[in-house]
């Protein structure tokens, strides 16, 4: 039976098992929205296309399935581009469907025309510009296959409006013609024995676990390897949750705002087993000092990451489960008492909490929310100081319960991503931590949250400043607070109420603790404006360009 291009999209999404899509209509997607009107899955009307992409991103991270977002041509697409770039940097599978002007108008500077295909290229894993309705089924199937295969990422399908209206035969392929070669799913674990030998002989081994562990679902494999051989595990920001942070072998997060013991362990390691990580500059610090005495084993699904940043002794190409499983098989049991004792000593020497500071500080806020919340509730952190406070003080024990924009560092990510994460997990409550700066970058989504009653519990760590930059200015730029402070006091509770979300303001721990039980138990969204001190810094900190071991631990008496 013949179908329109728009119907084909809806059918394809249904076949792919999509539960909800996020988007905003516009002139070039009216036929598609007509087909969505009676689609067997939900469409969540967002208030900004960037937020639609972040919501799909949060959905994808929380479900492990591709998130889908829809936008119109021109500005709809340019808005969504930030979300695509965010997903690309963090290897999140998305399928974005953008409307395009009619094929006969492409290239004529038509109303709301932009070079979507061209401008998407550096921000996506792959792009399709569909030029005929006959190409559409295979492009859609290809988009879903490419998004999840190998190293996941966003895929764009640019769909001119006339093709949405055109009719054609709809035969949705079970697979595209793409073989494993085209989907980049090679495996080479031939040197697993060398990796195992290095780990066996190591005196001070460390595992660095990246986001690849989470996208592969390899946390159990990581735990088995670490426990079998007594190897401490540090994670990257993207890897947070890959290893339970309350586990004795956990070093927590490494990097610029990593724990002292993770950074010291990486600096002192003699063998480093890095899995599913691309050695971001925020993780490595000064490169020539990073794991400088260590033989590095690098396991990743993307061979282009090998030797890109850190030259490695052994490469293991493949899925993290296969990498960890194979190496574990090759290893016998062992323990390393002396190394474990050294790590313990560092943990005692450099505790994370800051007993000398004021009452209403981010660490206390995070710890008290954590005490009240359930371990399984996802936590989404925005970008900046709030992100690093959350990463350090909200210990994560379950894989897939911490999400943030790690690579691109997109402020405004947290609220829409938290909404997507909640919808992916049957409307489970999701905790959203954001600063006042980042929150205002997508605060319009409070309205969306209210309209659908999505239980996102928002904590705005409000210091009335663009705090991370302010911190750099305080520490490294002679306290010249250019463009960061003071900001006018924004009443977030009133903003939330105006958009239909219950809003609260707290200025002390007592107030917050009084509020939390009810706020977390009540269905639907809620916001708390936490008025934290402007001067609060996120420490420890490795200054940009410094070695990991040279972290600032305390800067004030």
């Amino acid at each position, binding site marked *: 039976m013949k179908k329109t291009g728009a119907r084909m999209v809806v059918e394809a999404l249904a076949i792919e098992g999509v539960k909800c899509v996020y988007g905003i209509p516009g002139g070039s997607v009216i036929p598609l929205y007509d087909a969505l009107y009676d689609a067997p899955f939900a469409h969540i009307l967002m208030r900004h296309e960037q937020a639609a992409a972040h919501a799909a991103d949060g959905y994808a991270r929380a479900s492990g399935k591709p998130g889908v977002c829809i936008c119109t041509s021109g500005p709809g697409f340019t808005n969504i581009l930030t979300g695509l770039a965010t997903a690309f940097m963090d290897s999140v599978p998305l399928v974005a469907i953008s409307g395009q002007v009619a094929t006969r108008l492409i290239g004529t500077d038509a109303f709301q025309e932009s070079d979507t295909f061209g401008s998407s290229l550096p921000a996506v894993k792959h792009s399709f510009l569909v030029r005929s309705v006959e190409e559409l089924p295979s492009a859609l199937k290809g988009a879903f296959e490419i998004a999840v295969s190998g190293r996941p990422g966003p895929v764009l399908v640019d769909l001119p409006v006339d093709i949405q209206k055109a009719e054609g035969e709809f035969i949705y392929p079970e697979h595209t013609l*793409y073989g494993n070669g*085209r989907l*980049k799913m090679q495996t080479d674990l031939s040197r697993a024995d060398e990796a195992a030998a290095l780990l066996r002989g190591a005196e001070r081994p460390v595992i660095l676990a990246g986001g690849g562990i989470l996208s592969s679902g390899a946390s159990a494999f990581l735990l088995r390897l670490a426990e079998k051989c007594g190897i401490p595990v540090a994670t990257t920001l993207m890897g947070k949750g890959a290893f339970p942070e309350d586990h004795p072998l956990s070093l927590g997060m490494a990097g610029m705002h990593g724990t002292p013991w993770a950074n010291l362990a990486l600096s002192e390691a003699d063998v480093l087993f890095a899995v599913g990580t691309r050695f971001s500059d925020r993780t490595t610090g000064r490169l020539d000092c990073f794991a400088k005495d260590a033989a590095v084993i690098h396991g990743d699904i993307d061979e282009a990451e090998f030797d890109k940043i850190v030259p490695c002794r052994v490469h293991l190409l493949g899925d993290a489960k296969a990498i960890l499983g194979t190496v574990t098989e090759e290893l016998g049991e062992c323990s390393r008492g002396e190394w474990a004792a050294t790590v313990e000593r560092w943990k005692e020497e450099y505790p994370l909490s800051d007993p000398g500071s004021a009452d209403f500080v981010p660490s206390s806020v995070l710890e008290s929310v954590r005490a009240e919340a359930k371990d399984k509730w996802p936590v989404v952190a925005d970008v900046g100081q709030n992100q690093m406070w959350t990463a350090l003080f909200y210990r994560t024990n379950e894989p897939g319960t911490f999400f943030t924009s790690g690579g691109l560092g997109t402020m405004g990510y947290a609220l829409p991503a938290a909404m997507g994460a909640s919808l992916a997990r049957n409307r489970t409550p999701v905790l959203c931590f954001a600063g006042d700066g980042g929150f205002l970058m997508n605060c319009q989504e409070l309205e969306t949250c209210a309209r659908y009653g999505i239980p996102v519990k928002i904590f705005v760590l409000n210091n009335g400043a663009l705090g991370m930059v302010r911190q750099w200015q305080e520490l490294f730029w002679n306290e010249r607070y250019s463009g960061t402070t003071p900001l006018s006091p924004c009443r977030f509770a009133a903003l939330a109420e105006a958009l239909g979300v219950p809003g609260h303001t707290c200025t002390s721990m007592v107030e917050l603790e009084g509020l939390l039980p009810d706020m977390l138990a009540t269905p639907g969204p809620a916001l708390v404006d936490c008025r934290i001190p402007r001067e609060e810094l996120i420490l420890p900190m490795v200054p940009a360009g410094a070695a990991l071991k040279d972290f600032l631990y305390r800067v004030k008496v």
Partner: protein
Amino acid sequence: MERTIGVVTEEGRGVFSRISGLMERRGFQVRGVTAGATQRPGMARYTLVIGGDERQAGQAVRQIRKMVETVTVEDLSAGGCVERCMMLLKFAPSPEEREALFEVMKGYPHSVSEDRGSSLIFEMMGPGVLLDDCLENVRGLGLVESVKSGPLALGTN
């Protein structure tokens, strides 16, 4: 230092944009590039010359391999290859220059594609360095303009 990379891709929209964009944003210096058809219908071949050593070539190869359309990609400099560029040279020589010009050109493989007496065009094919050498030696002999293509290359293995 330069390395030559051979890429076979499926023909498709935007493949050239993808390759050039990828090289540009990853900071590879592309010093020459050609695109053309192969013996297999639907397959295109790109030849890139990039500045850098074996390690950088390896990085470029692995980045290009990630493209969905890439069928094969190899660092041709690693295993040896035949590499050829084309060059066209246009002259408007004086009679004295004309004589000297033909004398110099004897040293290089070439043919005369067009000769109108007052102006003439030579065509040449050969390794890039040989063509560069030729160009240096004919400057000052009435050279009007020249154009050299990027390389075509096939691995010898």
